[in-house]
């Protein structure tokens, strides 16, 4: 296989079913060895996109290149380079784990002499050795998910695509799967979709947020926070004369202002939310300025929007764009106020 820097290249991909646009002109690239998270509400087009990437579904228009090969014209070659775990992880109920692995290994053209050691290896990696002789239909959800992951990595393909691999797992199993996916970093290109957003944030190098068949945001989680919210927030608990607060804030940073002020509690402390367009850390100068002007400060913390906030804001923004009367689809609207 040629040593290509881009493992996946999607360009103007469109998929429609009977007039309904499931995927609407999306383009993105994934570098070799990168782990990318695919986020989106139900029906956003994640699974359809993943199925097109695997060559299982044909695209209506646009192009997909996997490891430099076009999926549309060389699906068999592409399938040799992909490990895929579909949504809901369908598995044959009547087979034993080791039999299933052997069968899949043969279909994926793993040489016979290499197959047994490789099966042992993936069963060890996925902690499946003790259930290798069990019937798949009798396994718990966690084991079944791991069988699906083991099968996806069995032939050591350069690209792994997993549709919600952690769904239905308990926290311990999620940790195992997260470590497992993390261990593939640099060796294999991985695309995973998930609704567990902290999971994506911890595992993935980059995130693609898709809604209504379009990519509404993409980048690293930190980049997305900046792009979607465009500001930092601080939360304070302070007591003192609030009329002098705007002057104190302006002295610290011109864009720093209070956006919400709570009622005083029994000790006279109020909760105050501050926002600034500056990305750098303002905690220390802010604290010094407040104390210097006679404010009593009980707490100061910088608010970090979670990926969940980013996801909700990005998808809400895309809905706003679509529903705005006279608004051309896809035009950016100002970011929503912080929540």
């Amino acid at each position: 296989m040629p040593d290509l820097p881009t493992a996946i290249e999607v360009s103007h991909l469109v998929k429609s079913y009977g007039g309904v646009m499931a995927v609407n002109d999306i383009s993105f690239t994934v570098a070799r060895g990168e782990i990318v998270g695919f986020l989106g509400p139900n029906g956003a087009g994640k699974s359809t996109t993943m199925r097109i990437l695997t060559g299982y579904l044909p695209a209506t228009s646009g192009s997909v290149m996997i490891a430099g090969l076009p999926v549309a014209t060389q699906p068999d070659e592409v399938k040799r380079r992909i490990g895929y775990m579909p949504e809901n992880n369908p598995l044959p109920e009547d087979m034993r784990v080791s039999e299933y692995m052997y069968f899949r290994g043969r279909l994926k053209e793993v040489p016979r002499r290499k197959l047994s050691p490789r099966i042992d290896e993936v069963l060890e990696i996925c902690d499946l050795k003790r259930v290798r002789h069990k019937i798949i239909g009798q396994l718990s959800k966690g084991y079944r998910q791991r069988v699906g992951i083991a099968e996806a990595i069995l032939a050591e393909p350069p690209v792994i695509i997993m549709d919600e691999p952690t769904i239905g797992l308990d926290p311990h199993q999620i940790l195992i799967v997260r470590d497992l996916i993390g261990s593939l970093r640099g060796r294999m290109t991985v695309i995973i979709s998930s609704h567990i957003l902290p999971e994506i944030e911890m595992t993935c190098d980059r995130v693609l947020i898709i809604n209504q068949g379009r990519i509404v945001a993409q980048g690293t989680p930190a980049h997305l926070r900046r792009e979607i919210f465009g500001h930092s927030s601080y939360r304070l608990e302070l007591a003192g004369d609030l009329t002098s607060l705007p002057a104190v804030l302006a002295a610290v940073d011109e864009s720093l202002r209070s956006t919400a002020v709570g009622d005083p509690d029994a000790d006279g402390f109020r909760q105050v939310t501050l926002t600034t367009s500056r990305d750098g850390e303002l905690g220390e100068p802010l604290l010094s300025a407040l104390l210097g002007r006679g404010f009593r400060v009980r707490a100061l913390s910088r608010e970090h929007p979670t990926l969940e906030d980013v996801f909700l804001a990005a998808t809400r923004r895309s809905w706003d764009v679509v529903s705005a009367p006279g608004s051309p689809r896809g035009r950016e609207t100002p970011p929503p106020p912080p929540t």
Partner: protein
Amino acid sequence: MKHLPTLLSHELRMLLVSPATYVAATLFLGFMGLIFTKILEIYSGAPQETSPAIVYFQLFWLPVCVMVPLLTMKCLAEERRLGTIETLLTTPVTTSEVVLAKFAAAYLLYTTLWASTLGFFYFLKRFSGDDRFLDPGPLLGGFLFIAVSGLLFVAIGVLASSVTRNQSVAGILGCVALATLILGGNALSDSTWLEQGLFRPLKSIVDYGHIFAHRDDFARGVIDVRHLLFYASGTALALIFSILSVEAKLLHA
């Protein structure tokens, strides 16, 4: 077609662990045993002109209409219901390989079950001590008919399984399609109205597809190339439609 042996051995294994296979095998062997017992009763009561083998194959349609759907109803419908067709078709195998492997596995089992009934004739010869009961001509002709016609019947069962994800519906569809082909063809062929005027060309088509007539020809030792062509082209057509059906479902998934 390099994955066909892997898929075929997998399909055979899946058939051998499926309860439907054993239900089909038990029903089939029980029914054929019953028919054979009745034949023995008739032959022990009075001398007959025809060989027992000819009488034995006359009721072939009844087990075919029940056994073939039981063997094939699960093959593609279940893959689609469970979603395992998606994992299968995202490996370097083609839809044709998948359909052919399922067809070949069901056909092998079908012919194996029929072949096992050769034991009835062996027991008859063994205990009667009369070689005339093991008349090789009609027996070989009958089994050859079963083997050749089985290609088409099993392909129709596979086609029925490819159009739905519900295996019960696939079973009923297969049963109705086989009964229509075998019994409907027979009923039409016996109709006198087809011999009149405009319908005369239709009559020749119906006669060409008259499966009972094929059976009688095979049993008499007449191996007509037209019959072989009928079953070969019918099988190819049913399998092509099965492949197209699976792929069409993907396009509209």
